[in-house]
């Protein structure tokens, strides 16, 4: 075998008392796509940050093409030909898409003046490979999924030998993901090595050549994809068998109407949306990126201003002028933008969990009962399996998936009547995801209304009893449990007959 392009041996990294990595080994062959798997908090992102020069290891060494190397900072990594698409979007919101895409190039450019015309033309070319986002738009004005596409486009412009993608598809839908895979394969054919981190087993098995598994910051195993199975990878990750990925669906007729939305428009991105959610069922919402699913949900909950339409909960019409009204009526929304609007990064886990309803933790005299707050957070964190130092730790110290669990814990802390969850399991590992799905099913069966917006097709199909598909801000159609399938969803979502749809290993996910 030829010398690995990248070789990690014995790398350890701690954050205070938390050991993120312990004596990790890893090796990347030239021209391979190498999947990296592990539960939330297993240390995947930490290792990638070390490779990209963002963090320094406490111990261990890195070899690039056989040569021992210290990667002091991101600029050094770039010079070595290492590019990283970060799990957490790191773009400049005030700059245009074009400038963000070519930021590393602008940084190292010698020409004293900018040539904006060329920049825009070239950036548009790169961007169009993924999605036709106009490159003069300010990144701050893009939805989070479009930002993720920009982040990927940015990595594609780098002249690199090693490309690391840390959960690039967490908020992407099938078509974008497929486009990305085509690009990644093409890069591989040019001899570029790729590290691919994902919690979606289907993707890993359709895209990658080898897979390495980490558990609790330690190296577990590396296998050829062809000689392993998703179940085995999951077992290595979690350390046990996961019996059933998705809970059983509702097998009786749904009960009374919990949520009724009629003719809802915001006048900009969603128009005349009507839907009905009934007790016991989990309603899915599918659609392409930018179809307006999130806007629809946000409008419903008073997070965007309503131009027309009505919302009823339990048969009671509610007046929603702001989100606080919705919360009061028992309607809560989980944001798809974790960092931007989901969590308070600098605040403790406990404070994050209690943010939605401080009232129930408030005793006489308006004082916060911190013991109750701690207890609540501890209980929910345990239920969701948050890997953490303690509930007093800042959310910023958690891994991406664990931050997402905190965001979910916040929703669960109030006893909502209807939960609208936008990409609820974004970045969450297989085991925890199954756990959360079970929890949602259990809530649904106890009469809590659950709406799940998801870009992950298997999740919509596996979890939901019924799926609405949204296209260009309107409901394009509805699929009952027995009609659910990737092809059906895609057809409704894109509005065209897709005949040559390349179905992924459906049985896996």
């Amino acid at each position: 075998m030829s010398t690995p392009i990248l070789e990690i041996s014995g790398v350890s990294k701690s954050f205070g008392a938390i050991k993120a990595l312990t004596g990790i080994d890893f090796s990347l062959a030239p021209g391979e796509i190498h999947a990296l798997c592990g539960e939330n908090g297993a240390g995947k992102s930490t290792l990638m940050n070390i490779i990209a020069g963002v963090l320094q290891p406490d111990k261990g060494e890195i070899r690039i093409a056989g040569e021992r190397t210290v990667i002091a900072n991101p600029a050094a990594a770039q010079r070595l030909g290492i590019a990283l698409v970060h799990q957490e979007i790191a773009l400049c919101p005030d700059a245009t898409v074009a400038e963000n895409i070519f930021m590393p190039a602008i940084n190292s450019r010698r020409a004293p003046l900018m040539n904006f015309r060329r920049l825009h033309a070239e950036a548009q070319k790169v961007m169009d490979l993924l999605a036709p986002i106009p490159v003069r738009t300010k990144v701050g004005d893009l939805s989070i999924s479009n930002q993720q596409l920009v982040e990927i486009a940015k990595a594609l412009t780098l002249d690199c030998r090693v490309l690391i993608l840390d959960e690039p598809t967490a908020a992407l839908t099938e078509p974008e993901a497929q486009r990305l895979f085509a690009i990644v394969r093409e890069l591989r054919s040019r001899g570029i090595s790729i590290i691919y981190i994902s919690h979606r087993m289907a993707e890993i098995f359709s895209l990658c050549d080898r897979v390495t598994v980490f558990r609790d910051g330690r190296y577990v195993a590396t296998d050829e994809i062809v000689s392993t199975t998703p179940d085995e990878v999951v077992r290595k990750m979690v350390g046990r068998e996961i019996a059933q990925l998705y809970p059983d669906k509702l097998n009786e007729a749904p009960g009374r109407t919990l949520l009724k939305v009629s003719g809802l428009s915001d006048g900009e991105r969603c128009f005349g949306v009507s839907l009905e959610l009934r007790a016991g069922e989990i309603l899915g919402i599918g659609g392409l990126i930018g179809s307006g699913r999130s806007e629809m949900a946000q409008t419903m909950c008073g997070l965007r201003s309503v131009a027309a339409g009505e919302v009823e909960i339990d048969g009671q019409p509610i007046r929603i002028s702001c989100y606080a009204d919705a919360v009061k009526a028992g309607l809560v929304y989980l944001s798809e933008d974790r960092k931007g609007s989901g969590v308070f990064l600098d605040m403790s886990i406990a404070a994050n969990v209690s943010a939605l309803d401080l009232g129930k933790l408030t005793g006489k005299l308006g004082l916060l009962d911190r013991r109750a707050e701690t207890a609540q957070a501890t209980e929910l964190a345990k239920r969701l399996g948050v890997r953490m130092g303690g509930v007093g730790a800042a959310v910023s110290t958690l891994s991406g998936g664990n931050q997402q669990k905190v965001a979910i814990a916040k929703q669960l802390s109030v006893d909502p009547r209807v939960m609208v969850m936008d990409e609820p399991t974004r970045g969450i590992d297989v085991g925890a995801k199954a756990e959360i799905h079970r929890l949602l099913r259990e809530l649904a069966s106890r009469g809590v209304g659950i709406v799940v917006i998801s870009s992950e097709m298997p999740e919509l199909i596996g979890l939901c009893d019924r799926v609405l598909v949204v296209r260009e801000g309107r409901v394009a159609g509805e699929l009952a449990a027995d009609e659910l399938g990737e092809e059906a969803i895609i057809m409704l979502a894109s509005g065209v007959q897709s005949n040559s749809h390349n179905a992924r290993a459906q049985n896996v996910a």
Partner: protein
Amino acid sequence: MTAQMKSESQGARWNLARLGSMREAGLIVIILALCIAMSFASPHFLTWGNFRAMLMSFSIEGIVVVGMTILLIVGGIDLSVGSVVAFSMVVSGALFLAGLDPWTASLIGIAVSALIGAVMGFFVTVVGLNHFITSLAAMVIVRGLCLIVTKGTPLSLFTLPPAFKAIGQGSFHGVPYVIIIFVVVVAVFDFLLRRATAFRKVFYTGSNEKAAQYSGIRTKQVKFWVTVLSSTLAGFAGVIYMSRFGAATPTFGAGMELNIIAAAVIGGASLNGGSGTIFGAILGMALLSVVTSSLILLDISVYWQDMIKGCILLAAVSIDHLLHRRKA
């Protein structure tokens, strides 16, 4: 878990073990070190008279610092505090001279200050301007109002009744009322900021306004009320100054805002919002005051005072920062 809950339940903040890990510990150490050094350098430093002078000099400003710190936590800033302090003095003073009893006059002065806060709050939350520019305009406008009311000359309130003057000038068993009021205000707000539900929303809003909105918090309301609170406390301070000085000076407190903001920032408040403590801010104030008064006691040439003061300040915040960073 039990251990955690226990320390939590003891109110624990003053627990010695936790002191070491407090944000404020570095500052306390630095202030103590300065005091010890000073007590060797000057026999006058460790006297009640000097201590009283230092406390007196910052205790009324300390009340303003409380409001500013809370405003910084919510992500705002208030450049108008100095003007509002003066306006509160001037309005109360003018009403008193017009025949009102000083207590009612003072209440009106404070109410007017709150109103100024409400107007600023309106511009920030409804119009959508930022706190900096809004409060800058307010600073100029309110200072102008002071000049208009007084025609530029200080109002002499020599005739204030002794009972009212006592607030600012009297003392209780040797401890000036001003200091008592200061300690009470600080203690109450420090406690509330750490424990009260309403103030927790201030942290959420300052830490991530959007996430706060997505948690059902009416962040505009929060920002509005914090702005009002800051002005109200400034107005309250103005009334105490009036009692202490027996005068209402239209130019009073010009430039005060920088000192106040500096104290809060030294004490750990972030200009980007989301963090800060009242106790820390007061320590910041104390540090500034100890440095100033040390230089005077040491009889340092006036030419050199500013330079040395600035250097000590810079060194102190650097040490504090490095101590704190090491820990993190």
